[in-house]
């Protein structure tokens, strides 16, 4: 019987579902009969790194489905991903360069726009020095793009004013890993989900922000009656639907809960004395300096954080803390966290305390036992953190403060010795403050939307866009009009995702290749090509050495090969990840130092981590399965004794409510992409503020009443949604809507963690009134 087209589409859809369920590839006959060719790629939303198959017809992306061959995501994708084809081909993509002339954007040629950019940057560098310019990048840029931008600014121009939006989301996780283990990035992997019996989800709405990971946890829990979930979150987010224990501290006061869990573990002798003796050291900061203490000193420190005391501080019942601590210690425990810990003025400390719990119970480096920070962007890890594209770091675990590291990178980049400055550049908040003071005179913003995403938004929008004498020159590369492009002096249309090739590095250290399959719209170009041209213009104008970029790097592949060499003999070593190999495989987890190395599931473990076999960290005295924290001082991870201090802006009589911000399933970050899919937009067409019924009653508010949310910095007008999800005294607003009334970041606070410099998006004091 002949199959008509609709039958064929039905069969294809059924086959795709069956293939995911069975974990097999689609039958080849199904593929062969299609007019569509299918190509493997990777989703460009969150840091889960879902493997996807892209259906291409006539150079257009016409379909997307999960890749059942993908080793970790196994064919699952979330609703956002499925709409990527529509987003790529949305009609309001930026298609031509635009220059602001007399207050209005005018279409320009690439030559005219790039010449203007070259002139303005060169002029600023010549007149005001290298630190008068800055780069603000993104965890959504490809690894090669971030690496190249970093190379141009730090090694070419000679400024460390290189930042990116991971400062807003992951910097505290970086600070936590580095201060505890000596190097950034998780040591565990997604495979650990299949071995864990306890999941500790902290400040993570995994269900909406990392839905494919959440599904894996859900599946594990459904298949095994003894798998338990502890959730720590002041809001009853959807993850609490599977929680066996829900700890709901007053926002900002959870550090006492984590210490109290350690207190219980120690008092009930559930700690791993052998692991502690071999692998850990204990430190406290006194008079601004870290000081070593012994285990007894740690125990004494914990005395002030009994469960009862923690209950007084955090509001979490002591008995729940005891139960959570016991479950955690029984394990095997895998801890996931995201912004609830990171976006805090105590973010690094909160991260340290997660690691403390794993270290004192010896639950690290073994299947199902690991701390694991989830990432919100597809390439915050591989692109920004690993390539060192923040103001204080250099590629692959190097620091601008270390002369040896600067010299290594100057040699690899071919930069004149002494070009890379030893002093960190301005962190994100300070960079935008400097912009507001006209100290930074030219800024390149790539693939991100700070005009909506920065905290305490108003002064920073003014810094970028307010007309004034000496106003800095702002260049924005993006795919759609945003609340940032409207502030720019020049807008450059960038190719999006499947229109350009490169590498994304996701949360579990897996680097994945994305091919260029679709023609960009209009005159849009890959960001990497734009950056190469930018470097060429600066070379021509003599503000970076002639040939510094142009003589060595001409293609994305050239950049990737240099990156591989920059990683050699570091803790990140991925020399074995050739382009050809990445094209064939479904991603590889670093370290992978040789072409035949399969990649590393668990770092720091002899027999798994090749860094312990070859190179500067090799140690032949270890036995298979032994752990060595080779990047840490004295090879010991640090258990930090951090005081349980509260947030930067506690509530008071005038501002009695705590505002927290976050996300919803259908929308991603500032909504630049997801709002282009009407189905996703319709799911959440307008902003809302969640208010507990107790508070709503007190304020006389009903569902859909307009609420004025006011902080010391600004206000927003948003409709009420009365729900028991936030605890009493707390309100919650997702931050993905861009209309002026809904810009909740006008209200949030720009106080930041002194270590990680990450702002406290999660907590500020507000007052509420019916508008």
């Amino acid at each position, binding site marked *: 019987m002949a199959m008509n*087209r*609709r039958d064929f*589409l*039905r069969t*294809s*859809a*059924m*086959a*795709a*579902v*069956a293939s*995911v*369920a*069975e974990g097999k590839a689609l039958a080849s006959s199904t593929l062969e009969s299609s007019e569509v060719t299918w190509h493997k790629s990777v989703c460009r939303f969150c840091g889960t790194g879902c493997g996807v198959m892209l259906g291409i017809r006539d150079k257009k992306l016409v*379909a997307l*489905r*999960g890749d059942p061959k993908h080793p970790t995501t196994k*064919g*699952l*994708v*979330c*609703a956002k991903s*499925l709409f990527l*084809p*529509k987003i790529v*081909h*949305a*009609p*309001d993509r930026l298609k031509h360069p635009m220059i602001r002339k007399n207050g209005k954007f005018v279409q320009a040629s690439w030559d005219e726009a790039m010449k203007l950019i070259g002139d303005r940057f060169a002029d600023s560098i010549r007149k005001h020095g290298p630190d008068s310019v800055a780069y603000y990048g993104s965890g959504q840029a490809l690894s090669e793009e971030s690496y190249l931008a970093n190379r141009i600014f730090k090694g070419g121009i000679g400024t460390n004013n290189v930042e990116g939006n991971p400062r807003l989301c992951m910097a505290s996780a970086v600070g936590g890993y580095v201060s505890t283990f000596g190097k950034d990035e998780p040591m565990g992997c997604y495979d650990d989900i299949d071995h864990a019996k306890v999941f500790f989800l902290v400040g993570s709405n*995994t*269900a*909406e922000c990392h*839905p494919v990971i*959440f*599904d894996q946890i*859900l*599946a594990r829990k*459904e298949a095994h009656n003894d798998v338990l979930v502890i959730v720590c979150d002041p809001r009853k987010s*959807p993850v609490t*639907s*599977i929680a066996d224990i829900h700890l709901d501290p007053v926002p900002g006061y959870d550090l006492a809960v984590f210490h109290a869990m350690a207190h219980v573990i120690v008092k009930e002798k559930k700690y791993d004395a052998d692991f502690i003796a071999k692998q850990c050291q204990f430190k406290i900061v006194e008079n601004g300096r870290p000081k070593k203490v012994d285990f007894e000193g740690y125990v004494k420190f914990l005395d002030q954080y009994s469960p009862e005391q923690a209950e007084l501080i955090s509001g979490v019942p002591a008995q729940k803390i005891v139960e959570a601590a016991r479950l955690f210690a029984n394990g095997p425990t895998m801890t996931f966290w995201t912004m609830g810990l990171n976006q805090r003025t105590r973010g690094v400390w909160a991260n340290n305390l997660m690691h403390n719990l794993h270290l004192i119970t010896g639950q690290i480096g073994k299947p199902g036992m690991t701390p694991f920070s989830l990432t919100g962007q597809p390439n915050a890890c591989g692109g920004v953190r690993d390539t060192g594209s923040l103001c204080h770091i250099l590629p692959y675990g190097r620091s601008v403060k270390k002369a040896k590291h600067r010299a290594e990178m100057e040699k690899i980049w071919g930069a004149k010795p002494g070009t890379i400055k030893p002093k960190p550049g301005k962190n994100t908040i300070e960079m935008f403050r400097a912009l507001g003071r006209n100290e930074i005179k030219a800024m390149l913003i790539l693939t991100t939307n700070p005009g909506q995403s920065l905290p305490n938004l108003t002064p920073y929008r003014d810094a970028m866009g307010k007309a004034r004498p000496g106003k800095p020159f702002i260049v924005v590369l993006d795919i759609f*009009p945003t609340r940032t492009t409207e502030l720019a002096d020049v807008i450059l249309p960038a190719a999006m995702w499947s229109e350009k090739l490169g590498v994304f590095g996701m949360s579990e250290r897996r680097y994945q290749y994305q091919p260029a399959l679709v023609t960009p719209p209009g005159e849009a170009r890959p960001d990497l090509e734009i950056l190469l041209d930018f470097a060429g213009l600066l070379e021509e104008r003599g503000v970076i050495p002639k040939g510094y970029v142009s003589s060595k790097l001409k293609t994305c592949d050239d950049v990737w090969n240099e990156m591989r060499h920059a990683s050699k003999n570091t803790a990140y070593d991925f020399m074995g990840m050739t382009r050809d190999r990445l094209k064939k495989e479904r991603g590889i987890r670093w370290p992978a130092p040789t072409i035949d190395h399969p990649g590393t599931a668990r770092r720091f473990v002899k027999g798994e981590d090749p860094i312990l076999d070859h190179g500067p960290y090799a140690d032949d005295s270890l036995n298979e399965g032994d752990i060595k924290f080779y990047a840490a001082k004295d090879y010991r991870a640090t258990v930090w004794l951090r005081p349980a201090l509260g947030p930067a802006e506690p509530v008071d009589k005038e501002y009695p409510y705590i505002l927290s911000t976050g996300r919803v*399933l259908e929308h991603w970050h500032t909504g630049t992409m997801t*709002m*282009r*899919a*009407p*189905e996703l*937009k*319709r*799911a*959440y*067409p*307008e902003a*809302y503020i969640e208010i507990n019924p107790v508070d709503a009653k007190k304020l006389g508010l009903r569902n*859909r009443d307009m609420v004025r949310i006011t902080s010391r910095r600004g206000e927003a007008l948003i*409709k009420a949604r009365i729900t028991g999800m936030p605890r009493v005294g707390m309100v919650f607003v997702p931050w993905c809507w*861009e*209309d*002026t009334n809904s810009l909740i970041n006008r209200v949030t606070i720009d106080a930041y963690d002194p270590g990680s410099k990450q702002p406290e998006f999660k907590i500020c004091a507000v007052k509420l009134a019916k508008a």
Partner: protein
Amino acid sequence: MQAQPKTEGGILFEERVGQETSSRRDPRKDVDASTKPSYVVVGVLCRVFPPLMGEVCECIDSLPGMESFSLGERGRVGVLIEAGSFDQAHQRLQEELLQVEGVQAAWPISTQWE
């Protein structure tokens, strides 16, 4: 029967209300212009409360534009959603499939259209 949370892609399903708001620049009103299919089929992987598998499949099959198919695995069932537009398919997923008692999660795996 034990109460089961309703989830979409793992999230709790709740009523989502509200009308389309006008966009500041309003370029999105015509976002559908490049892709206006007349037929959409979505392949969905559902996680189903195991004791209710039979009832769930029966209920899904009674819904217009929906058809369940076996995946040979307890707790999982495939569903085809057919609709005249993306909107309608999305609406059926959210407002019908996820409302079926015993459906815990629904993962749209494949979307095809013409």
